[in-house]
């Protein structure tokens, strides 16, 4: 008798594995009324890998102009990309806005993004859009080395990221190897240097006692505070800190053209193929590429990608940034290898 009840329970558990989530409905229906209208087909759903300060003002202006509500799910680009992958066709998202080309490229490769109309794609330099037209760059972000001017002498500044695996940089710099922007930088490196050399560099970095962070922000803050000499980050973090705190003892150092350290990444957006509001979704992207929106991004020191809006004050203009002879579209193909190489090098 006991055995039978035990068996029944075990069976119930297995069954639950298949149907658990909706069984619970009945117990909590009273709270259902507070559900937001995310899947009612009314509001657009934007998965944003960009943070709220960056995104919300342009969303508000979009809603004011079109009357279309937008629900924004903020998260890490990688978090959201994995979520989109897991959701597949069932995704409630209409638009995905990533920080880096690699992850959105990966989503495009899975066939989850629809092709954007030409009038949208033609707004930006083709270098900053998907070759297949599945995503378009909204802003440009340059990889740089931020350094503390008290701790790093001008003459010490490296000419290449390869210098960072040398003993003189041991323990002096920070990286955020799990952050999307670092991963994107490695995807570019795989394209220019090949997998073997990239692994060599990653292992060299890992062996050079780097300070590991989860994001760029903490690295920049550590450099600004003088806790850390230097770090591989995106260019705008430091500019934002200067804007908030005034003059700080830190500078951005750009690697020369051709060095993998100098990748300029497009933070792109695309429309989900499964979206039932394609038109509104494209309108949203169009809005992101409007002059008004691009001016807003400029206040946060990213590079606008449309014609007629200048780059951040006191920084190299977009056209004069060091270049790397790769297609951002191809970074989607090197995403898997890049992730594997980072893991293999033990950078976590």
């Amino acid at each position, binding site marked *: 008798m006991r055995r039978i009840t035990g068996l029944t329970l075990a069976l119930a558990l297995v069954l639950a594995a*298949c149907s658990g989530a909706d069984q619970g409905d009945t117990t*909590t229906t009273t709270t259902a009324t507070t559900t*937001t209208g*995310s899947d009612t087909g009314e509001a657009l759903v934007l998965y944003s890998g960009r943070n709220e300060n960056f995104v919300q003002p342009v969303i508000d202006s979009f809603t004011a102009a079109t009357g279309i509500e937008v629900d924004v799910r903020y998260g890490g680009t990688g978090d959201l*990309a994995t979520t989109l992958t897991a959701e597949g066709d069932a995704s409630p998202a209409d638009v995905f806005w990533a920080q880096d080309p690699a992850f959105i490229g990966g989503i495009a490769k899975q066939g989850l993004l629809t092709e954007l109309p030409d009038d949208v794609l033609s707004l930006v330099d083709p270098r900053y859009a998907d070759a297949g037209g599945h995503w378009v760059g909204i802003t440009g972000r340059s990889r740089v080395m931020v350094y503390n001017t008290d701790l790093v002498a001008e003459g010490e500044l490296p000419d290449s990221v390869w210098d960072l695996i040398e003993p003189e940089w041991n323990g002096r710099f920070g990286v955020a190897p799990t952050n999307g922007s670092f991963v994107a930088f490695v995807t570019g490196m795989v394209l220019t240097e090949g997998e073997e050399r990239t692994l060599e560099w990653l292992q060299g970095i890992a062996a050079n006692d780097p300070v590991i962070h989860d994001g760029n922000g903490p690295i920049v*803050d550590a450099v600004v505070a003088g806790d850390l000499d230097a770090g591989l980050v995106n260019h705008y973090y430091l500019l934002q800190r200067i804007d908030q705190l005034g003059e700080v003892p830190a500078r951005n150092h750009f690697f020369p053209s051709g060095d993998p350290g100098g990748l300029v990444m497009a933070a792109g957006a695309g429309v989900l193929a499964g979206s039932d509001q394609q038109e509104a979704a494209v309108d949203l992207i169009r809005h992101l590429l409007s002059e008004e929106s691009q001016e807003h991004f400029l206040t946060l020191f990213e590079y606008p990608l449309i014609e007629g809006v200048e780059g951040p004050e006191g920084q190299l203009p977009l056209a004069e940034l060091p270049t790397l002879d790769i297609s951002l579209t191809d970074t989607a193909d090197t995403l898997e290898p890049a992730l594997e190489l980072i893991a293999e090098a033990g950078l976590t």
Partner: protein
Amino acid sequence: MTTASPPAVVPQRKPSVPKRRRASAALWVMALAVTIPGAAPIAHLVWTVLRPGGFDAGGIAFDRLAELFGSTTLLVVTVTITAVLLGTTTAWLTTRTDLKGRGVWSMLVTLPLVIPSYVGALAMLGSSGNGGVVSLALDAVGLPKLGVFHGFWAAWGALSLWNFSYVHLIATPALRRMDPALEEAARGLGASPRRTVFDVILPQLRPALLSSSLLVALYVISDFGAVSLLRYETFTRAIYTQFRGRLDIAPALFLSGFLVLAALVLVVAEQRNRGRAGLAARRPTRPPEHVALGRRARVVAYGFLGVLVIAALVLPLVTIGWWAIRGTALGNPADPVWAEALRSGGGAGAAAAARAVAALPVAILTVRYPSRPARMLEAVSWSTYSLPHLAVGLGFLVLSIRYAPATYQTVVLLVIAYVAMFLPQALAATQAGLRQVGPSLEDASRSLGSGGFTTLRRITVPLVWRSLLAGGALVFLTVMKELPATLLLRPTGFETLAVRIWSASSELFYTQASVAALTLVGISAVPLYLLVTKDLHR
């Protein structure tokens, strides 16, 4: 009439607690309905690992697993030992010594519970390093600045500081209930004070220490925010790294499944151990004696408590307060977080209410109709509680996308997940309440003509109402702080305080993070205060 042989008195167990009573089918249905949703993702995760080929499909190298296992174990063991030592000491000092202001101290060492470990970690980051609050203060008096807290020692410190209060909470009533007569008996039989501690006091504390150790250990396993912020690699952080770093959820699911298995082993081990440890609860005839501390011991004790309260409560509050004020003064964006507060409070409130209601059938089943299936049901719900929320959240995420898309990213699913994760908290409180309501009250109601449901409504619920509230308050407190599952399962746009703190701190917008953190701490303090005053100062 039969004739019995003369009094060969056969000792028989008197069924004082009526055994083998049969629970109604409706009760079972309700109990299962509230337990199964929580068990489903667990079953799914375990299946992910144990299914044929699951290990290969996980794509995680064995070396990596071993490494994670090692680093996680190290943290779990050290933090558990530290927290138990700290919590037992504070409990002893505030119940069994003649220190002044014991009630206030007890309250002060309980209050760190309002500080989620990730807020604590954030405060540690904000106080150390060149720009940190403590560093600046040290600098001002000519002392060297603190280096940035990170890595093992930082994680150990943070998790110990913001967990020892659980031990304090559990050990305090255990120490208070201890019958001083037992200690006196030991002393009377010639045992030294030291031997008395080891032979009499510790064995009585054993169940409390065991269960609080388990609580702390499971918390450390599941901690996500603090280890991420302080950069110490554990299983849970690795799960998140996999989740955010890959375009594939499988490796994260695999690691989650693995972690769930490890946590289950821990839970089962504790249950077995507890089964053997069962000590008859004695009701002491008088309150315990207070040990008179010598002058030097008194100074040490005040110093210990003071340092602990400063480190676990004052410093983090000062740090986040300082960041909030400094940021606002500098004109940094520090929008009010009322909407988030409302969502946090609303979500937590809904979960607490749903949980308290859901706990009732399971509590009735386990207390009034003890049986093996009922115990299994209880164990299942405990196991959900003890598992890392990130893993459970991933399980819910995958299951709802696949099998219940209508609930995906809805408050309904979020509340179900909360309910599943925190069932035992409310359960324990409700069970305790039910045990105090003698079954004879329900029998009395039945014999006076009331059916099962009427009895529940008119007698049982009114009498366990306070316990339900206490359980609800505990759930409220925990849900307010919950981060990883909320991050994964929240409806789009449903930014809670915890999510806000997390996203702001990962971008290092200290001002925003600190305003949200202060709000969270303020709101959490209310239910905690109610709980503490209820449990400790009565």
